[in-house]
């Protein structure tokens, strides 16, 4: 029906019934939100996610790459997060990379963080370890809350790290 169906089959899509076993077809295919795509709602993935379009909602995935022209309004939770675009919301990940083209407005919760010079960040930067410790050792949590009470006026002071513009 469609003249370009050949291209599609090259991209890994099944061309006919039974061609590719169920479920196996796309498990290797990363999800790609191109510049033309707009998602209003939450997005969950057990695989890789590349976003170049617009997302209004929360994203949960194994690995998320936010492209330069992408715009996200909502939080990102993933193992690996690479932000090159604009995000308005919390970024939470084991390994977080903020590229120089990024504009991040919101907190960044991480275990390993890398920020390129030129990135614009507005929000707190926290290490995931201290959050995890809250569950394990109450002492750390108490210490943290005590510290927070001690310096309520400069709540941003400790973790905030405005990157060079």
């Amino acid at each position, binding site marked *: 029906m469609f003249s370009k169906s050949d291209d599609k089959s090259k991209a890994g899509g099944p061309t006919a019934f039974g061609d590719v076993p169920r479920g196996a077809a796309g498990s290797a295919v990363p999800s790609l939100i191109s510049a033309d795509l707009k998602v*209003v709602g939450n997005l*969950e993935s057990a695989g890789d996610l590349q976003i170049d379009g617009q997302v209004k909602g929360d994203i949960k995935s194994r690995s998320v790459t936010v492209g330069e022209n992408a715009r996200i309004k909502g939080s990102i939770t993933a193992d690996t997060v690479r932000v090159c675009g604009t995000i308005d919301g919390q970024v939470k990940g084991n390994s977080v990379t903020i590229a120089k083209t990024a504009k991040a407005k919101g907190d960044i919760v991480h275990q390993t963080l890398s920020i390129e010079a030129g990135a614009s960040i507005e929000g707190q930067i926290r290490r995931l370890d201290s959050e995890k410790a809250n569950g394990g050792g109450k002492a750390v949590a108490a210490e943290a809350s005590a510290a927070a009470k001690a310096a309520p006026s400069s709540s941003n002071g400790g973790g905030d790290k405005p990157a060079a513009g």
Partner: protein
Amino acid sequence: MFSKIDKGEELLSERIETVRRRTESERRLSIIGAATTIYGDVECVSALQVFGVVEGDVRSRVLVVEFGAHIEGRVFAERLLVYGSIHGPVTATDIGIEASARILGNITHNSLMIAPGAFLEGRRPWRPRPVVG
């Protein structure tokens, strides 16, 4: 020295070139992978290929619902090709429904192709084009 490598390199560069060209032509193609579920509406002004699950409305100029994919919501497209399952009303100008497809809902179309074996439930009203404005 390594004549075989020269040939291999040639082949490799050829392949890289093909991949690069394809990437350029498919740059505007969006893919919702099999591992991905979207709870909400999706709107695409170009082409969208769905392997995963969308629980919400899908609007796309060109839409391919792949084998194993599922859409729970309304579907609007100019050109639509279905291998997977849709639960909701479908509105598209050109529709191709393959044998593996399963659609529960009315299919409003201008041109409709149904492969033998497809599971369809609902009415299939015809509309003068363009069906999707």
